């Protein structure tokens, strides 16, 4: 049990029980504990524990009132971690679902690291995948301690004790709730080894429609960063450079400080911050600022010019991200060679809650309130900005109003900005940074712009014998701590999804040309697959047409050894009635793609009106994500992932003119709305494979499915996203 041995949470907790009986919602025992215990500074913070409670391990706390709190190490931003991770622990505990409460973990890399990469953070659809065994063991371990306590109290063998729905009982007629046993169980040793359930005995895992554990979202009581209220708190609004790369030359704060409510104006590395009693006064203060910008190093290019540059670079040989077979020979043998290129624009994450963060600097340390995907990264970023140790930075992870990758910023941009403002303000009061929608869109970060070139050769049977794929674009990981993951010049996030096709092609190559620009870029829901799934799956339909074959038949003929692709493809085809006749104004398109270990196939059905405008009417989605922990959350993530992917498919793009973003709010930055949303029919493959993620894998599949339906309808190939609203 890795999580118990390494961090010695049991020791830490027993000390906390003896020394600190505090249970406070704000700066509580965990903070004091971590700041006090020798050697714990680097380890970070621990959950609060009160007297009489059982902190069985880093993830399970049982209170005398019979509440079982599951500590959730992954942020909840709609993808369902508060429910999903709690389901797994509750399953092994045999807890009653009604007694389960979920709580966000404090920042503590040792206790709460993501097993996929070693720091505390959420991303890459890893929450369930990396926590599955950990949460099972945590639940089983807590159960073991409760049973041991009961066995001791009742003087019966532990093997005769039954646990069901939160009640521990023995055939002699005695029984006790978890809460009644909590204190006694806290004196039991933490087991070295626990027995896990046989999956066939799962009760909660796989159960449909378990009530969710991220509460308060239908009555306005859920607290997001935007809603944090603290004594003495001030609000900051920042004037950022109007163009990428511009800097503050000088500014006058006179008019800003004259605005009622404005208390301070400070310069920070990327602009000038106005601090006031309320948001509106801070914004008025910012509007009154006079700033002289230094444009000497500012970006001048437009996105049109950038794409021209990318197309030119696309003529050059790139670095080989993957290669096998004899490509030249295969192209020589091919009876047909098909070429296509594809353009992808910058994309904004456009979370509903614009970027924001609360930071308070006091003599005791730094405290942060934020809905961040990267507690460890934010601790490091703030520590570097404020010249302190990461262990002095307490992070309170709140619900986030969407993220889609944005709040996993490689530079902790807006978080560090808040820390700079708090530092420059020089007072121990909390500072809430609020970005307006325009700030959010204009500052970036964005999904990079990409240019793809594809070339394939078919033999006389219509089989693909050669495939060459070249990708041109900025690297997400460069210029950050993640640059260490770039190997041989290849940023894997630029080519993922292109290097691992569902299809077996004997002669195959993927090249990457990484280019630079001053536009800040970041991962965006499903990352590389946002563009690679489109180019590869749209190209497959072009090849199917060249081979004179049905797109589904053509795909099936090229599938490799992995049966899971075929299973999702066949299920989506069956449920969408693929191949059946449609009225002349309707068409279907299919696409299949694996990302983050999960397999997704979709069939999109379009309907065209008399004016040549189309609507995506319905989408059938088949998914194989291994063991289905919460089927309804899987369905919800497929539905939402499709809706999210539909925006860049149909209408979203960020364009740049003279180094500045053109679309700054939702009037210009088009996104899918109610009227654009198709009906979505999700089918989950029953599987005993280890669970994989569902937050991202639906997103990249919808654009090629729609493009292929358009291709089938009009015969016109779509080489540029967004597709627009006309056939």
């Amino acid at each position, binding site marked *: 049990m890795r999580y118990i041995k390494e961090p010695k949470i049991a020791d830490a907790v027993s000390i906390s029980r003896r020394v600190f009986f505090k249970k406070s919602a704000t700066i509580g025992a965990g903070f004091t504990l971590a700041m006090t215990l020798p050697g714990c500074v680097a380890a970070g913070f621990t959950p609060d524990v009160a007297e009489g409670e059982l902190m069985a391990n880093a993830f399970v706390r049982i209170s005398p009132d019979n509440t079982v709190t599951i500590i959730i190490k992954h942020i909840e*931003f*709609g*993808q*369902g971690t508060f429910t999903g991770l709690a389901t797994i622990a509750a399953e092994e505990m045999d807890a009653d679902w009604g007694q389960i409460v979920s709580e966000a973990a404090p920042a503590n890399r040792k206790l709460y690291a993501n097993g996929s990469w070693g720091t505390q953070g959420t991303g890459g659809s890893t929450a369930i995948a990396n926590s599955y065994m950990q949460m099972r063991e945590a639940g089983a371990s807590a159960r073991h301690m409760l049973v041991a306590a009961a066995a001791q109290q009742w003087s019966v063998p532990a093997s005769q004790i039954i646990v069901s729905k939160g009640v521990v009982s023995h055939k002699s007629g005695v029984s006790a709730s978890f809460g009644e046993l909590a204190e006694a169980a806290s004196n039991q040793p933490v087991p070295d080894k626990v027995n896990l359930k046989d999956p066939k005995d799962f009760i909660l895992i796989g159960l449909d*429609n378990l009530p*969710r554990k*991220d509460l*308060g*979202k*239908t*009555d*306005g*009581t*859920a*607290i*997001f960063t*935007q*809603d944090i*209220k603290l004594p003495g708190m001030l*609000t900051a609004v920042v004037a950022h450079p109007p163009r990428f790369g511009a800097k503050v030359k000088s500014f006058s704060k006179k008019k800003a400080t004259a605005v*009622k409510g404005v208390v301070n104006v400070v310069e920070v590395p990327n602009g000038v911050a106005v601090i006031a*009693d*309320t*948001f*509106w*006064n801070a914004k008025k203060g910012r509007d009154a600022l006079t700033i002289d910008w230094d444009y000497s190093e500012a970006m001048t290019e437009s996105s049109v010019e950038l794409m021209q540059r990318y197309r030119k670079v696309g003529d050059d040989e790139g670095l080989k991200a993957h290669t096998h077979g004899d490509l030249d020979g295969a192209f020589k043998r091919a009876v047909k060679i098909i070429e296509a290129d594809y353009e992808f624009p910058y994309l904004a994450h456009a*979370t*509903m*809650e*614009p970027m924001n963060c609360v930071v308070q600097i006091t003599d005791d340390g730094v405290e942060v309130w934020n809905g961040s995907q990267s507690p460890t990264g934010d601790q490091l970023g703030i520590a570097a900005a404020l010249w302190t140790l990461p262990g002095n930075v307490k992070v309170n992870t709140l*619900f*986030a*109003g*969407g993220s*889609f990758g944005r709040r996993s910023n490689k530079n902790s941009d807006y978080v560090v900005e808040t820390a700079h403002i708090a530092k420059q303000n020089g007072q121990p009061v909390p500072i809430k940074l*609020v970005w*307006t*929608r*325009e700030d959010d869109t204009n500052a970036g970060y964005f999904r990079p712009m990409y240019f793809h070139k594809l070339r394939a050769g078919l033999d006389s049977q219509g089989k693909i014998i050669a495939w060459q794929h070249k990708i041109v674009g900025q690297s997400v990981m460069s210029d950050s701590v993640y640059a260490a993951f770039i190997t041989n010049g290849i940023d894997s996030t630029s080519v993922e999804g292109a290097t691992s096709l569902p299809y077996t092609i004997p002669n195959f190559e993927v090249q990457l040309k990484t280019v630079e620009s001053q536009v800040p870029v970041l991962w965006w829901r499903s990352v590389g697959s946002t563009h690679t799934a489109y180019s590869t799956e749209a190209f497959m339909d072009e090849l199917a047409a060249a081979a004179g074959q049905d797109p589904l038949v053509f795909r099936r003929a090229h599938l490799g050894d992995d049966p899971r692709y075929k299973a999702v493809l066949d299920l989506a085809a069956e449920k969408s009635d693929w191949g059946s006749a449609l009225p002349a104004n309707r068409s279907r398109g299919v696409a299949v793609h694996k990302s983050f270990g999960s397999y997704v196939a979709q069939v999109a059905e379009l309907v065209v009106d008399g004016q040549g405008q189309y609507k995506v009417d319905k989408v059938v989605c088949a998914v194989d994500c291994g063991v289905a922990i919460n089927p*309804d959350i899987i369905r*919800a993530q497929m*539905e*939402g*992932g*499709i*809706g*999210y992917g*539909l925006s860049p498919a149909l209408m979203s793009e960020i364009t740049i003119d003279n180094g500045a973003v053109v679309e700054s*709010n*939702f*009037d210009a930055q088009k*996104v*899918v*709305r*109610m*009227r654009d*949303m*198709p*009906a*979505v029919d999700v089918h989950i493959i029953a599987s005993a494979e280890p669970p994989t993620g569902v937050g991202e894998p639906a997103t990249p599949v919808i654009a090629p499915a729609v493009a292929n339906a358009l291709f089938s309808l009009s015969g016109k190939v779509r080489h540029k996203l967004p597709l627009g609203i006309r056939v």
Partner: protein
Amino acid sequence: MAISLKINGKKHSVDTEPDTPLLWAIRDHVGMTGTKFGCGIASCGACTVHLNGQPVRSCVMPIGSIGDQEITTIEGLDSMEGKAIQAAWDELAVVQCGYCQSGQIMSATALLKTNPTPNDADIDAALSGNICRCATYARIRNAVKHASRTISVKEV
């Protein structure tokens, strides 16, 4: 200057300029945070509240223009339609990140009030002003219809 606002049946005196948008008066002065900031230009619907029962975007409504009109926020939603909408949202597990949902619920409640049995086109028209980036739209649509049915059952 102090401006009087009637929110959820209670009078609040707000000491700020009349050009302050209702959204920020509700959030920063009255201290109720269920109504959300999303765009500031009446384009996303996250800030939707009711003014005399009508859905309005509070982010562009100066408090100086409101007078004694009745403001209802998500915290004060207690109509039969509102309760039915909230129950349907929970039952159909509509919510993902949740940030837009106060606004969605306020818009959907206003729709049911004027149109107890909305069809798809009615729902499109009434709710296309409310963006949900998690794209919970399909479930919102079903939940509106579900709430409509639960109300009609009650009325029978």
